[in-house]
């Protein structure tokens, strides 16, 4: 079995395969992560990136604006029936 390099593990993380991999592949990556602080850091940075993206996106629409849009849409779509 191929012994994974940091590049392989980082690629797997960035492609999103880490979370969707088979048990064996995930286990092999976990073993690599145990002994590699840079790959652990890379994984933490990627996890933080996901979290920050959700945080940013959910701050884009505030309640009042959403309510106003919903009202306009409902009126307009009902009018076109």
């Amino acid at each position, binding site marked *: 079995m191929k012994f994974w*390099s*940091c*590049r*392989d593990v*980082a*690629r797997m993380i*960035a*492609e*999103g*395969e880490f979370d*969707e991999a088979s048990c064996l592949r995930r286990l092999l990556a976990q073993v690599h992560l145990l002994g590699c*602080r*840079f*790959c652990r*850091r*890379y994984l*933490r*940075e*990627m996890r*933080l*990136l*996901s*979290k*920050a*993206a*959700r*945080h*940013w*996106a*959910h*701050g*884009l*629409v505030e309640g009042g*604006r*959403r309510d106003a*849009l*919903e009202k*306009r*849409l*409902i009126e*307009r*779509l*009902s009018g*076109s*029936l």
Partner: protein
Amino acid sequence: MAEPTEESLLSDIRARKPAAIAQAVRAHAGDLLRAALGMGLPEADAEELVQGVFTTFLEAAPRFEGRSTVRTFLFGILYRKALEAGRKKSRELATDPTDEVFDGRFNWWGHWSRGPRGPEDEADVKEIAGLLAECLNGLPDQQRAAFQLKEVDQEESGSVCNILGVESTHLRVLLFRARNRLRECLEGKWKEAS
């Protein structure tokens, strides 16, 4: 009163019942607006796009077979329209500058030669979110759509592939490039800020 199931809601939408349409709007318009703004559209264009999505949805509802959820179906219409509107739905290039930057991080046997130095502490999430907008603007549209669908909208990979019309191997490339480009951008900004 119990919420109607998605199937009964859909049949009421096909029958053009105003209450069902209002329910679909209330359930999804906010998320769709957030997605349109997330793709970098100005406010007025984003709202117009969301309206166009619902109009298309009502027209397409009789043909909708329910193989995906209504939410995924609506997101599909939105992202396809957003990519077409920008006429930027260019084919992803075989090579991307990000690939070279990524490879440059490793030595010849695949170990880190320059380890990651970006933000990693969960306590910094608000600050990172503030830096992210500019980094997202540097992404090609298809990479941005793939990243947003997966990370923000949290759609399954299969649904993202259907929405963007790409194979799963292509989606992995899009996500690899988007995440690395964003990580590199954040690392640069983080260094400047600290």
